[in-house]
Structure formats: structure tokens, C-alpha cells
């Protein structure tokens, strides 16, 4: 699958939502924990060798599952392959918790659900559709009742 790598690399240089040095292990046979700089930008998690400016890789964070593993450790896996886990070991329990929370909220799909929720609540309370002023009330992405994610 082709993709605009150049733009993705440019995105990796943008100010991050969150960034930290952690130990990371990829789901490949025989792989070990390695020190990496991880950087969360929009719905991508970039990972760098600690002394390099260009990321080694990127993970799109849609349809992923963030799981607490053992102490200080969390993992990212994807719904179609739940056994393949990217593992991250943090410096502390608190750091681990913060990353889990941040990553859970980092997907476009999550924001879409939040928006639908707020829209609904505001409508219930005020009787008005808050999206009308944006001229986007009819768009498919903001409708309630989209069953599956």
C-alpha cells in the first residue's frame, strides 16, 4: 500500500501531545526491549532511536486496544491481530497510567464518539443542535446510531 511517507515524517516533527523515552518491544520473534523515544501526534504513535531525528516507525492508533500488562508495562495491539503486541515499559506506574489514558483517547474514532455524545447531551438539555452553527449537522460522521466501530 502506497502512502505519503513524506507527510508522515513531517507529522512526526510536529509538537507532540505526549513524548517520552521508554523501553519498547515489537511483536517480532526474538525481539527484545529497546530504549526508544515515543511520540504521540494526533492518531499516530511514532517511535525513534533515542539519538535520531527521523522515526523508525509509526503506529496508526485506530481500532487498537491498549492493555495494562505487568507493573509499569502497557501494550498496544490491533483488533484484527490481538496477540501481536507492541510492549512499552515505563519508568513508573504513574507514567504508565498517563500513557494508557492518552492513547485510549488518541483515535479519531474516539473523538467521533465523544462528539456524538456531547451533541446528544446538549440537544437534550437545550433543545438545540450545537452542530448547526458549523453547518455540519448532516454529515455522516456525526450521526448517532452508527452501530459498529
Amino acid at each position: 500500500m502506497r502512502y505519503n511517507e513524506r507527510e508522515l515524517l513531517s507529522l512526526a516533527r510536529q509538537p507532540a501531545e505526549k513524548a517520552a523515552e521508554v523501553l519498547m518491544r515489537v511483536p517480532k520473534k526474538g525481539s527484545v526491549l529497546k530504549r526508544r523515544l515515543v511520540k504521540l501526534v494526533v492518531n499516530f504513535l511514532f517511535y525513534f532511536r533515542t539519538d535520531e531525528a527521523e522515526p523508525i516507525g509509526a503506529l496508526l492508533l485506530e481500532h487498537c486496544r491498549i492493555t495494562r500488562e505487568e507493573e509499569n508495562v502497557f501494550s498496544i495491539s490491533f483488533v484484527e491481530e490481538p496477540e501481536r503486541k507492541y510492549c512499552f515499559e515505563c519508568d513508573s506506574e504513574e507514567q504508565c497510567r498517563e500513557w494508557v489514558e492518552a492513547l485510549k483517547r488518541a483515535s479519531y474514532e474516539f473523538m467521533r464518539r465523544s462528539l456524538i455524545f456531547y451533541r446528544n447531551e446538549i440537544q437534550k438539555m437545550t433543545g438545540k443542535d450545537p452542530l448547526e452553527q458549523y453547518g455540519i449537522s448532516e454529515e455522516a460522521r456525526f450521526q448517532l446510531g452508527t452501530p459498529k466501530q
Partner: protein
Amino acid sequence: MKLNERSVAHYATCDSPADHAGFLRKRVERHHHHAHHHHATSYQRRWFVLKGNLLFYFEDRESREPVGLVVLEGCTVELCEAAEEFAFAIRFDDAGARAYVLVADGQAAMEAWVKALSRASFDYMRLVVRELEKQLEEACKSLAACRKSPRRSSSSGRKRHLSNPALLPLQEKPTVLENGYSTWGSGGGVPGGATCPDRDGGYAKPPPLPPRRRSAASSTMGSPAPGLSPAMPESPVSPETDCFSKLHSWYGQEITVLRREWQERQKKRHQ
């Protein structure tokens, strides 16, 4: 740079809703060194699917895997002066970056695509969500301010308020503010709708009315110091939030009155 391509491709083809989809003709880009040769511009018809800030394109509608992906973050979308009618371009800030020139079937299709693509960024979505979050907070506050007015003399008036569903979001709202979105299942169900399961502490459903509220008139308060945990409805709210403390004191006022009434009755009884 590696990308979790398999998962990305899966996201493209899974049944999560697309924000927009349709056929577009995509201009074929030549390498720079061919620029001097006069190649005719050619276009390839592809099936495009927009999901969030990702624009996928497939060879055709039934393809099981995308041919390509355009990450849309940081792009601008503009109409094109190309030879083709109904053409528009996706461009990036980066000086050397190529533009994606796309051609729609007609005016309406072109406008729909330009509209959808220019609002596709993560940042835009985040902006709208934050704005709505603020609006909900303001709606809560003004509702709470209404409630602060002194307690009614008729308890039926109070009861009516309490069964008013508009009151209940006051309790739900602090959960969102305090916990961020942590009570939302990250992979699970669709919160915010009637279909949301109760597992998150009844988050999406309004919490049940406190039972004592209903029997207040018949006064089952036999015990002298009613657990002045006022009949607080169960809900996972934080004591720190503004809305909740107002709610708390509002309930508290009513309890104070009821308690005084009970004490009067007791006094009379013992006379």
C-alpha cells in the same frame, strides 16, 4: 519508516463508517526528470474512501485492499485550475511535496469532496469536540444556577424537578470533566446512546432516582439522625466538580427542611 500497514489496511476495509466515499479520477504523477518531456497528463479512476484524517484509494469498489493512502493531516484542499473540469487538489505545506490532483464526476460531487476533505483533520475534530465540551459545561452551569433558587414550598414541585431528565446530565457531566474519557470503553460499545451497557457505572443512562425522594411525603425517617448522606443517586461523580457540589447542597437544603419538619412532629408527639 515502518508503518503498521496491515492494521491500517484493515481499518480501511472494516465496517466502521466512512466519512465519505466515491469514485474520483486521480492524476498520475510523473517523476521530475520526465517533466521536460511532453507526456500527456493521464488519470486513473479509483474508489476513494475517507475515514477520519485518512484518505484511502482502491483499484475498484470491491477491492479487498487499498492501493494507497493519503494522510491528510496538515493539508489544504483547493479547487484546481487544471485542464479538467471538477478538479481539486490536496496540497501540503512542504515545498517539495507533490499535490494530489483529483477529478470528480460533477459539480456536486466535487463540492462534497472538498467540504469533507477540508474538515477531515484530527485538529479540526478536536476543536469541535472541545467547543461542544465547553457548551455542555455552560449548559450545566446555567441549569445549576436555576436550581440554586430557594426551595419550593410544595414538595410535588421538587419531585417534578427531580424526575425531569434534564437534571440528570448534571450528574453525568462531571464524570466526563473529571475522568477525561476514561469511563468510556476504548474498544467497546457505543456510549452516549440508549444502547450503552451499564457497565461503566450507569454512565450513559441517567442514574435511578433516589428511593427516599419518593417516600419523603410518607416520611419513613424513623431514625433520629437520618444518615445525612442525603439520598444521593449513585453516579461516579467527583466531589470536586462545581456542578456536583451545587447539586449536593441543593439536595442538602431539602433534607434540612424535612429533618426540621420531622423534629417538629416528634416534639408535638411527645407533648
